[in-house]
């Protein structure tokens, strides 16, 4: 049942393929520019808490975002800026959360990568790795009970997160219930500093699929076309009622675990290998090679992305942080009459 897709055969309408590719690329670009901006704001001491970037993982992540539809469910993880933006997140949501604006979706209560808008299908991750997958299952399960058809859910995680008991319980649960879950694993060769040989002993994490009785696909995570195809097809199959799908992408994180980390532990050999290629650069080369964009267009797109990011981060920086005395921040229950007086 395990399939390995290296270079997909791209069938169908060429212009649709091009449009999708360009759309995806532009979200990747926006994510990269925003991530870079956040990194520099972090270095300037403007951001509280950690900054975790998706650098090198944009092709995979964006493929999820462009593959999902409005009523779908998405549980991004820490490196999914591209997927978030392509799904439905605004640059302003991200900027506000990182910059502590009280107008952001988390209102200063939670920060940065934990942002989300569950009502709009974008779950707000908790830190505990693996914990979001069964929550996606629950959403899909509820929809099925309510007779809502044709929606899917995508959960993301890294190689390290596959070692959690939560990952296993949720994968197995999805398989039993035949839920339209697409589990996207970004095997970026490290979990923080820990290399994959201290994390698993199978050939590839896609080998887990057979143990859950679900299809599994491996994809070159540096190649946008491959990612669009494999993730797109997995989403389509899930949507068509074929049950859970596992996608494992091979790639390398092109940054530290967080911006506090210089990632000296990453093997130079890996950096020099195909895994270490930058999906952005590959995509740009492909765009040019296909004559879908020339250098001027690429510059224009970048300039537009930069402008969006600058506007959003500037706006968020002007916004007020939360004022603990102005609003009731100290109610952990929605049922007001069950609240106890606070100390």
């Amino acid at each position: 049942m395990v399939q390995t897709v290296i270079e997909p055969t791209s069938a169908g309408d060429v212009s649709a393929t091009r449009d999708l590719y360009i759309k995806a690329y532009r979200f990747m670009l926006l994510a990269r520019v925003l991530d870079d901006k956040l990194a520099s704001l972090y270095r300037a001491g403007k951001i509280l808490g950690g900054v975790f970037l998706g650098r090198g993982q944009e092709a995979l992540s964006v493929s999820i975002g462009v593959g999902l539809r409005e009523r779908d469910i998405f549980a991004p993880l820490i490196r999914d800026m591209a997927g978030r933006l392509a799904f439905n997140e605004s640059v302003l949501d991200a900027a506000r959360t990182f910059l502590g604006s009280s107008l952001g979706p988390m209102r200063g209560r939670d920060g940065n990568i934990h942002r989300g808008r569950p009502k709009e299908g974008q779950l707000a991750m908790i830190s505990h790795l693996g914990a979001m997958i069964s929550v996606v299952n629950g959403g899909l399960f509820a929809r099925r009970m309510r007779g809502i058809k044709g929606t899917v859910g995508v959960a993301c995680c890294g190689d390290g997160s596959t070692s959690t008991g939560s990952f296993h319980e949720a994968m197995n649960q999805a398989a039993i219930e035949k839920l339209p879950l697409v589990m996207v694993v970004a095997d970026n060769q490290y979990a923080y500093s820990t290399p994959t040989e201290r994390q698993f002993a199978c050939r590839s994490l896609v080998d887990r699929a057979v143990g859950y009785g679900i299809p599994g696909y491996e994809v070159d995570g540096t190649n946008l076309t491959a990612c669009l195809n494999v993730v797109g097809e997995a989403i389509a199959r899930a949507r068509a009622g074929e049950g859970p799908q596992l996608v494992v992408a091979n790639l390398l994180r092109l940054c530290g675990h967080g911006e506090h980390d210089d990632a000296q532990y990453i093997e130079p050999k890996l950096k020099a290998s195909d895994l270490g290629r930058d999906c952005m650069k590959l995509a740009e080369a492909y765009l040019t090679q296909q004559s879908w964009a020339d250098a001027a267009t690429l510059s224009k797109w970048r300039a537009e992305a930069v402008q969006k990011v600058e506007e959003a981060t500037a706006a968020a920086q002007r916004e007020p942080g939360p004022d603990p005395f102005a609003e009731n921040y100290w109610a952990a229950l929605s049922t007001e009459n069950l609240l106890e007086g606070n100390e």
Partner: protein
Amino acid sequence: MSITYLEAIREAQAKALRDDPRVFIYGQDVGAFGGAFKATKGLAKEFPGRVLDAPIAEDAMAGLAIGAALEGMRPILEMQFADFSTVAFNQIVNQAATMFWRTNISCPITVRLPCGGTAGGGPFHSQTMEAIYAHYPGLVVLTPATVEDAYSMLLEAVAIDDPVIFCEHKFLYYHLKADSLPTEALPVGKARIARVGRDLTLVTYSAMVHESLAAADELLSEGWEVEVVDLRSVKPLDTDTVIASVARTGRLLCVGEAWPWGGVTAEVITRVVCEGYDLLDAPPQRLNAKDTPVPYHPNLWSAHRPTARSIAAAARKVLQR
């Protein structure tokens, strides 16, 4: 007609399923089998597709319930024993409990925990975990002591927009009977004066209410009138009712089946002394299980948990000061 505590739990679930299409039940063996304790007996048949067997995966069970709640459902999760909820602990305290505060979206799940000691239960089928869950913000923790409360509070739990930890006591499942199901009830958050008295306030909850009432009987024969307060819910905790009782009696004993450190008894005493210090005529006291795992053998078990006898002894000490 007579109905047990366990049947009341079943009936409440049947009513919830009947009245509210958003309700479903998920747990190990809850389907055709009707649950390890038969708390869902017949429900899978009566409500097809809404009472589902779960794999042995408490973390994913809780996660699924949370995800469904976000989509507007009202899941009831049955843990086979409260003790196994430790495996779902992270999802409950970090995912469900923080949801509303973090995202402004409520997370109405009800987690049924068959709690508490029975003879022969041993260390892993006897635990009462109310203090653990009550420590975390964002959870409502209920501990019904009567058939009526088991019924009405479970229905209320399902209706509450927040995650509710429903601690049902296994010792009461078959022992406790009522003539009929209640049509009205005290709301969650209100304690009940289970017995009126003027000499001592005995605050307790769950199965210990019955041991305490028996102790009060015993003490009455010695001339002491003990007021027994059944907390019903330990979070929120009805400090007002407790303090009003202490204001009448001047004395306080708190009894809990859980371990002492940081338990309900410590929380109640702290609230009373912090808020109603001057009302006390004598030092308050607490009585809990001993600070070891719950023993398997009945000889040990009955020495481990508070009983009518040990409660009466503790009460005498408070009364005689």
